[in-house]
């Protein structure tokens, strides 16, 4: 169908099926992502993009199919499993907890602590400082790590969620519609972070239904429709009109 960048495959999902009761959300999808690419996952609302990603991140264990990471078969049953494998995800709707401070969000589930028996005493100062520093390294300035996330703008929140994923993510960064609720200026900022992540060699999966974004940042893209894969294409292979037609099903591949 298309040539690749010749890099090794990082993620290989084979014949993934996901059923919710009688509803078949994914009907045998193959999906692969290579080292150092930004791979966009496209499709209309309800096409199965988010479901496919949630299978990869352990939110929904798959009904059928196999997942390989760096050629090794993996069984991802929970978000904790995915994180242990180095898969970091920024969800559109559940990235951060508004009532908690920036540093508590940043280190949530990965707190630095000393154990005294069952008591896990937090290193608050250290986490506050590390949070500030690593966000600054990625180009995100915050006023104070103590600030509640709920007081930040949508763009700032998304930046911190991406910054956190980059800070902890060893292998793969997944962004689930990271720009859907953002203004134009905030969106371009978020796209810059994606470029930065790619430049550092991190493969990125980017879920979107905005055709423009594919042209701005992604190297390749996979289109899915009604739980089936339509195809995987390289940047520039199709026109925006073609892409839109494939997404809606106005044209077959």
């Amino acid at each position, binding site marked *: 169908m298309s040539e690749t960048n010749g890099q090794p495959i990082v993620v290989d999902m084979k014949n993934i099926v996901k059923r919710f009761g009688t509803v078949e959300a994914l009907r045998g999808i193959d999906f692969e992502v290579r080292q150092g690419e930004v791979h966009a996952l496209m499709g209309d609302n309800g096409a199965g993009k988010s479901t496919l990603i949630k299978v990869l*991140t352990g*939110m929904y264990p798959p009904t059928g199919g196999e997942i390989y990471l760096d050629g090794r078969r993996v069984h991802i049953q*929970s*978000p*904790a499993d995915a*994180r242990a494998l180095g898969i970091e*995800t920024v*969800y559109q709707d*559940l*990235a*951060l*907890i*508004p*009532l*908690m401070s920036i540093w*508590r969000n940043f280190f*949530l*589930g*990965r*707190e630095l*602590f000393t154990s005294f028996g069952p*008591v*896990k*005493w*937090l290193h*608050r100062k250290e986490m506050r400082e590390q949070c500030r520093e690593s966000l600054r390294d990625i180009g995100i300035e915050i006023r104070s790590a*103590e600030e*509640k996330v709920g*007081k930040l703008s949508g763009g700032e929140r998304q930046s911190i969620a991406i910054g956190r994923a980059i800070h902890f993510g060893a292998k793969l960064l997944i962004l689930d519609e990271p720009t859907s609720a953002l203004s134009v200026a905030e969106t371009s900022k978020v796209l810059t972070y994606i470029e930065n992540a790619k430049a550092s060699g991190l493969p990125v999966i980017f879920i979107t239904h905005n055709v423009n974004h594919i042209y701005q940042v992604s190297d390749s893209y996979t289109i899915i429709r009604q739980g089936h894969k339509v195809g995987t294409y390289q940047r520039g292979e199709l026109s925006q009109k073609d892409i839109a037609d494939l997404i809606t099903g106005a044209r077959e591949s």
Partner: protein
Amino acid sequence: MDNDALYKRILRLFAESPIAGPLVTLIFIFVLFLLFVPNFASWRTVSGIVTAVAISGFVTIGITILMISGEFDLSVAPMIAMSGYLYGTISTGEDSVVVSTLSYFGLPVQGGSIPLAIFFALLIPSMMGSINGLLLIATNVPSFIVTLGTRQIYRGVVWIVAGGVLFQTVQKLPLYEVFNGRFDLVNNLLEKANFRTAMLWLLAMAIVFQLILVRTRFGNHIFAIGGSKDAARAQGVRVRRTKVMAFVISGLMAGAAGIVSFSQFRSVRVAEQAGIELTAIAASVIGGTLLTGGYGSVWGALIGILMISVLRSGVILLKIPFIPADNFPAVVGVTIIAAVIFNNYLRSRSTS
């Protein structure tokens, strides 16, 4: 300019700290009563206010932690009764279902056992709490409903254990003095004061649980699952386990309340402390805890329960027509609504 900056800093402090608003309100009401309510400014009244919060204070700490995690517990009253029965019968060795059952299993409870009394009075309510939590995660029925059910079931269990009757003792064990005796060290210094030792235990518990909430990983996860269960899960927080633990803490605190209550009154009945769950939820909310979870503090809980007690003493001393002690819940109702409006106002002022 400097004044303006100071004003902003103070507002920011209010925004960051969940207790600033409730604390200011409590002090304001207290000072107002000191100045204008006859007989309020006496050690007798002040010690009465403090003593009245001891038992409900323990429960409020537990329920506040649970509410921060996003859940409710309406079943604490029978847990207090259960704790009271276990503590009372085992400490005295009184002939009862509890004592005969335990000695059947070979435990040395004949003639009374102090360590076993404390152990079972804390263990059994904690287990009742864990049953609430396990039922919640197994069925996904909201905790409001689960604990509404277990509240009646637990009351039935207590009825069986107690044989349906009041348990009381004339024995005055030194143990009772330790947990909730007269605090004469202080009372002798202050005129007409009637403080009791439970306030020290309550203070110790408050410090311990506040530290657990803000300084430990477990506390961090309590806030996280209350703030957003799914976001917490996505970050690898073990939501179900943390929830069950929060229910265990609520049960443990109810157990502590049972010990303190029996130590003071040396009696316990099946319907002991009935209705305390709503007072505790009210105190939590007055103290700044969000009903929807994810926000609150142990100090706020104590301030909330003290506020209710201060109002109660003030209102009774004022001798307002139609509001004697029996009709006091009407005042609590007004306070809850006023406190929530005031807290919301402060929060919106300080965030903008």
